[in-house]
């Protein structure tokens, strides 16, 4: 189709574009390589499949914001198809007389598909531009109290406009080209949209049509050549960096499992992330994969309650910092700017509840939570600068083995039970080890739960034992607060205790999702591999096996709050509901449940410090949601959720009953026993 001169020009421009792209892409890759560790490449076929699935399936998108996701799917699928279309168009342009599958049925199908997907991409892009620039959707804004790179607000608008115009121009001119082709060569029923556009050109001179055909080709393809080297500077890079990020994601035992640090290696002089180059490579990749859609921000409990934290702003700020320093970083230049400054404020850093909602929400596999926890490590291990209240909790773990700084007896909670709870020392042949946790041992509310769990196990005839005073804090709060050193000491101590108790060959059950996550998912990396289950899982199993005498329906309306470390981090959503269903079948769900559950506000060591300044307490926000279901009981499965929800309940004037599932089940068993006794008395008479 092209003239010889055009062909030469195209060859030259394509070479220039590819050369420049190789320069900028190499710069991006070298910048990513400034990070620590390696990107995961093991099991490449599986990883490729992950990337392709994410790109083609768009399933990460559609979970949230359905209409916007639909528009995006139109563009995404259009774009995937256009990778082939551009190749075909270049071949048709460069090879005289070549028309791709001109007469075959496959060619007709191809042209129909391209024609329709062109429309879908144009409509999708127009919708997104209208959403951003005319409707000005608030989803795309970041609250003014959140730190945002000075160039970001305008930069994102400009970048979006450039990308929008690029897509409209590229796809639009491809469509016009097809329409000129139809005007020249006659109608094609397989390109209805292009045929409709061809109607515009009726009566125009053949020379004009020919000019139009060439101009359209040049604009459509030329835009790609022009944009190619620009990709690393634009958020539009997400279209391949997103799938790339998902493909190279590290294997973790849970979405929240942190990497261990090597404290033995004396040559390591930096722990945690002070500068962006201290981050793992996968987390530098995050910044290039981010399309700045703010979906993580929508899910973030700190942001929703007016704190200074937005996980989206963190990725944006990282990206703008990288963009401004890419040349220097790629050539080995030192980055001297601390992240705590441009990436987020100190209050934002300590506002994170480590709930993992941001990583769950991100369509491109970004993990802002990991950056925050890496920065906390730097603050604690390197700078010794962290909220003062945490010092008490740290000292408590160090000296007393619990963050409450309680010197008391870890068996005291068993004293009011009407049966004896044995320690492993007294009863080494146990079947199940009940890991009580510091909350169960010391917190008055959680002691009730611990007693309920013990009661249920006892009534069901489970042969269990506890560690008693040999038990010590798992170190979860220390780890989420950045004190990895204290975590490692706690973990080593507990692993020794657990191994001595033979827990590796038994089942461990715990009433605390934080203990569950740490023992089950995080101790493995330190050599402690255990089979750990949450009490609701065990209760569910016991109920199913008919080992619990549970009464029928009692009609109480109950809603269940998924704890982050049982749900998102543990993947346990149904067991607690099943355990609950065994007693109270009238279960109403909150709008945000299961993997979309909204944190109670305690996680990430928040419960050990004052909540950062914001509009409202995270716990009040969540409690309101529970209250609005119309349920009278709020069932929980975590001592910290229980405490947060109880406090919020009290502030609201106690409209609900907050109970752990174990308590509900234990009450139910007791009620049944009561009824049983009454029936017996009745029969005696």
């Amino acid at each position, binding site marked *: 189709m092209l003239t010889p001169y055009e062909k030469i020009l195209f060859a030259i421009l394509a070479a220039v574009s590819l050369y420049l792209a190789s320069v900028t892409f190499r710069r991006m890759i070298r910048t990513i390589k400034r990070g620590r560790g390696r990107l995961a490449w093991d099991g490449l076929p599986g990883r490729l499949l992950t990337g392709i699935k994410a790109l083609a399936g768009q399933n990460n998108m559609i979970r949230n914001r359905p209409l916007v996701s639909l528009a995006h799917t139109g563009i995404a699928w259009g774009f995937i198809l256009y990778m082939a279309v551009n190749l075909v168009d270049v071949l048709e342009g460069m090879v005289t007389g070549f028309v791709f599958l001109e007469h075959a049925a496959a060619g007709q199908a191809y042209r129909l598909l391209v024609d329709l997907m062109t429309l879908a991409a144009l409509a999708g892009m127009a919708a997104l531009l209208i959403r951003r620039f005319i409707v000005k959707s608030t989803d795309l804004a970041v609250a003014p109290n959140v730190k945002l790179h000075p160039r970001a607000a305008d930069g994102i608008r400009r970048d979006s406009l450039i990308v929008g115009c690029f897509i409209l121009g590229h796809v639009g001119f491809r469509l016009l080209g097809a329409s000129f082709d139809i005007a020249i060569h006659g109608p094609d029923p397989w390109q209805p949209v292009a045929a409709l556009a061809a109607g515009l050109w009726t009566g125009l001179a053949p020379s004009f049509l020919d000019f139009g055909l060439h101009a359209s080709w040049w604009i459509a393809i030329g835009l790609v050549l022009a944009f190619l080297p620009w990709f690393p500077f634009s958020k539009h890079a997400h279209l391949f960096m997103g799938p790339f990020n998902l493909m190279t994601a590290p294997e973790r035992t849970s979405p929240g499992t942190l990497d261990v640090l090597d*404290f033995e290696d*004396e040559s390591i*002089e930096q*722990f945690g992330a002070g500068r962006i180059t201290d981050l793992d490579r996968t987390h530098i990749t995050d910044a290039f994969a981010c399309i700045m859609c703010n979906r993580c921000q929508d899910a973030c409990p700190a942001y929703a309650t007016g704190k200074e934290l937005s996980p989206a702003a963190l990725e944006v700020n990282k990206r703008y910092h990288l963009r401004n320093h890419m040349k220097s970083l790629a050539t080995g230049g030192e980055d001297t700017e601390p992240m705590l400054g441009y990436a987020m404020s100190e209050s934002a850093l300590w506002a994170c509840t480590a709930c993992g909602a941001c990583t769950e929400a991100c369509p491109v596999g970004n993990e802002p939570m990991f950056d925050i926890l890496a920065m906390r490590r730097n603050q*604690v*291990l*390197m*700078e*010794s600068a*962290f909220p*003062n209240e945490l*010092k008490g909790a*740290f000292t408590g773990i160090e*000296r*007393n083995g619990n963050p409450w*700084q309680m*010197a008391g007896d870890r068996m005291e909670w068993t004293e009011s039970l009407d049966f004896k709870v044995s320690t492993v020392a007294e009863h080494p042949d146990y079947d199940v080890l009940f890991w009580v946790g510091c909350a169960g041992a010391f917190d008055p509310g959680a002691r009730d739960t611990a007693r309920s769990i013990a009661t249920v196990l006892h009534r069901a005839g489970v042969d269990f034992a506890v560690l008693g005073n040999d038990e010590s804090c798992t170190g979860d709060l220390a780890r989420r607060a950045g004190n990895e*050193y204290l975590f490692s000491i706690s973990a080593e101590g507990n692993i020794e205790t657990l191994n001595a108790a033979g827990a590796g060959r038994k089942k461990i059950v715990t009433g605390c999702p934080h203990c569950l996550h740490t023992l089950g998912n995080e101790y493995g990396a330190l050599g402690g591999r255990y089979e750990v289950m949450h009490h609701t899982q065990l209760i569910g199993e016991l109920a199913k096996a008919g080992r619990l005498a549970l009464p029928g329906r009692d009609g109480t309306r109950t809603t269940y709050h998924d704890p982050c470390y049982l749900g998102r981090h543990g993947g346990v959503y149904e067991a607690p509901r099943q355990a609950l269903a065994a007693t109270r079948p009238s279960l109403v769900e909150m709008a945000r449940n299961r993997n979309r559950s909204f944190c109670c506000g305690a996680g990430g060591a928040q419960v050990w410090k004052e909540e950062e300044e914001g509009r409202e307490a995270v716990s009040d926000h969540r409690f309101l949601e529970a209250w609005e279901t119309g349920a009278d009981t709020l069932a929980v499965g975590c001592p910290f959720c229980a405490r947060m929800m109880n406090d919020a309940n009290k502030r609201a004037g106690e409209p609900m009953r907050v109970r752990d599932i174990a308590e509900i089940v234990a009450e139910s068993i007791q009620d049944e026993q009561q009824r049983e006794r009454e029936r017996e008395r009745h029969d005696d008479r």
Partner: protein
Amino acid sequence: MNIIALVKQTPDTAQLSAAMDGLMLSADGGPRIVNPWDEYTLETALQAREEHGGKVTALCLGPPEAADALKTALAMGVDEAVLVSDPAMADSDSLASARILVAAIRKIGDFDLIVGGRAAIDGNTAATAVQVAALLGIPLVSYVAKLRNLDPSDRTVTAVRLLEKARETVTSRLPALITVVKEINEPRYPSLIGIRKAARADIPVWGCEDLGLDPSGVGAGASGVVWRTELPPVREAHIEMIDGGPEDAARTLVDRLMEEKVI
């Protein structure tokens, strides 16, 4: 500016139990910690160094295990640490301890400021630092809640003392000894880099011979105070839960307190 921080290792009195050998430090006597008041001592010394330069030496008298307290001091950031330890020094009372500490301070040499805590939580005499100042013949400013002005060039220190019913601002010449109360600052949490540095550090141990002290002049034999410790008797407690709404509960509580002649 050369600063000496006096540090003692004590039992964690928050965790006293019958299993412990009274208040004495014994191998199985429960966790031992840096005397909590001395955390403020160390923070004061470190802040003064950060402002004026120079060096902080932490000085501790105690059994060999007390080196752990100095490790904490090193982890917090002191430049040097010295442990004074000798079996002959065991059971020294505050005056005998002061004599030992003074000998060690003389051996350390030049100093502008000595900082100590208001007391140690085990003996709780609040006397040792006072006696150190007296033996050295330098001014003592005790119960310091704020260092208003520390001026190495003018060789003065102005401090606010926290008294029972007043605050007193005192200016003293340097060298001087100050004892601090917890209102003065917020002790830092050791960074990992500090902990690693401390783990590598070799802490010198000085005994009677190193200090030129006659063993008969220190320890129990040279002390006027004889230690006899016992745990407080267990108090009989009776717990009564009051039910009802806040107003009723408060009324019942007041009635009960009046019955018991508490109010």
